């Protein structure tokens, strides 16, 4: 049985940039335990000497010319998508 503490879930939420409330933390603690219990069946599998697979295409180092291509979306269009912008810049709350 996996043992996940609410405190470690709180820490995970911080790392994941999720501001969860207490009830969400309780629920996710329970769910995480259940899911980790389930995926632990992988322990039964002998993977000694097996290389991991990260992708299946076999493609590697796909190059292109270092040339700027015309995009269908210009800077003004993209800036319109930002919730807060000012003087052609994306605006964020004070960082420091």
């Amino acid at each position, binding site marked *: 049985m996996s043992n996940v503490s609410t405190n470690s*879930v709180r820490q*995970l*939420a911080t*790392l*994941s*940039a*999720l*501001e*969860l*409330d207490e009830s*969400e933390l309780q*629920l*996710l603690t329970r*769910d*995480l335990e*259940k*899911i*980790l219990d*389930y*995926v*632990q*069946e*992988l*322990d*039964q*599998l002998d*993977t000694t000497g*097996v*290389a*991991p*697979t*990260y*992708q*299946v*295409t076999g*493609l590697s180092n*796909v190059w*292109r010319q270092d040339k700027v291509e015309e*995009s*269908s*979306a210009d800077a003004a*269009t*993209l800036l319109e*998508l*930002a*919730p*807060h912008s000012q003087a052609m810049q*994306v605006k*964020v*709350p*004070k*960082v420091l």
Partner: protein
Amino acid sequence: MRQSIADLVLAIQSKQVSARQTVEMALAKAKTISDYHALLSLSEERALQRADQIDAQLASGQTLGRLSGVPFVVKDNFLAFGAPTTAATRILENFNAPLQATAIEKLEAEGAICIGKANLDAFGHGGSTENSAFGPTKNAHDKTRVAGGSSGGSAVVTALDVVPFALGTDTGGSIRQPASFNGVYGMKPSYGAVSRFGVISMASSTDTVGCFATQASDVELVMSIMAGRDPRDMTTLPDFFKSSSELKSSCKIGVIRDTMTEDIAPDVRQATLDYIEKLRQAGHDVQEVDMPIIKYALATYYVVVPAEISSNLARYDGIRYGQAAEADSLVELYGRSRDQGFVMENKRRIMIGSYVLSSGYFDAYYQKAQKARTLLIQAYDTLFESCDILLSPVSPTTAFEFESNVSDPVKMYLADIMTVPPSLAGLPAISVPAGQDKDGLPVGVQLIAKYQADNQLLGLVKQMEPAHV
């Protein structure tokens, strides 16, 4: 049998019906099925404009594309013009895409007309469309049951004959399972066959773009147009999609014994056995094969995919696009925008992903799962030495009732047990309609081919088509 896409295009080209009439009919039909909640938006104005353009081109004698005037619907995780792209989430509720997905551009270049956006589990996270932030989609055959997911809306609009085809994405079964639940074809191509540029990322190592249709030849036509290398998606393969005319008259088909256990609903099992019998009658050599490693595929998937999800969803920060929460600091802005903008299943998967990727657990979970994935791929390679095609059910059950699985995430994940193995290996797979259960709910059979043997898969499905009408 319904009119094929090719026949519809012929009817438009010979002016038996105009593109405008065809699109108007599809839009009208879409409105009559609003109680299914299959569609999140209609791009009516743009669709009608495009239809008029097609009709004008036709009147001036121009050569038209292979999909001229054919209306279609896309899952709302494809960036498209004419309607918002929400991914069924609050964080993108008012997001107007600045560009279109390559898949849509290719279809539109052949004259197809996108009429609207279909409902999904938020960001594609789910197998029932109950995780949509805007409410679930109802099954085309029984409104008390789920549409399946995550591409539930696309499956339902196809099954209800609103459009001849619809696009979906399939990361671990999100096209095949709803296709099975609604009784239509649903194809997931080989990984890398279709560009994912302009499609909202879920898990980059297994995400694929595919389609739903009611006829095998329609699936083939749509897939062949979408497939091919895209300089804007470096994971795409050079075009390998060829006509399926060179199909062998007798295929060796392996039924994966480990997927036909007593955990499968009896009616699903029976429908699968009936389909196997039809394959034999058509002259194919069907044998049972063993694949014991398959029982680890779901656990592998639910480590690898949340890890990739937690990385891909990091981009939703309330700054460059999407909804921003009220906040005084940057940390609050991130945390609150994401808390308010994601549904619980999004958060659950981000948290699992963060857990398996965190130091101390990386080797035990993430690395272990990627090694298990290698063993799974090797098992497929071995089976494909003696088989052309592998067969299993698509889902252990037919469409389930609303809320029957939502309280237990592991129970919900178990619905994906048949569809995730080919996804982890990048293999092409298709859900083929194969009868009904005792309640009249559709059953789908899954056929799987070797990597990049998509044409062989479609060839077999086309050949088998009349056998189960």
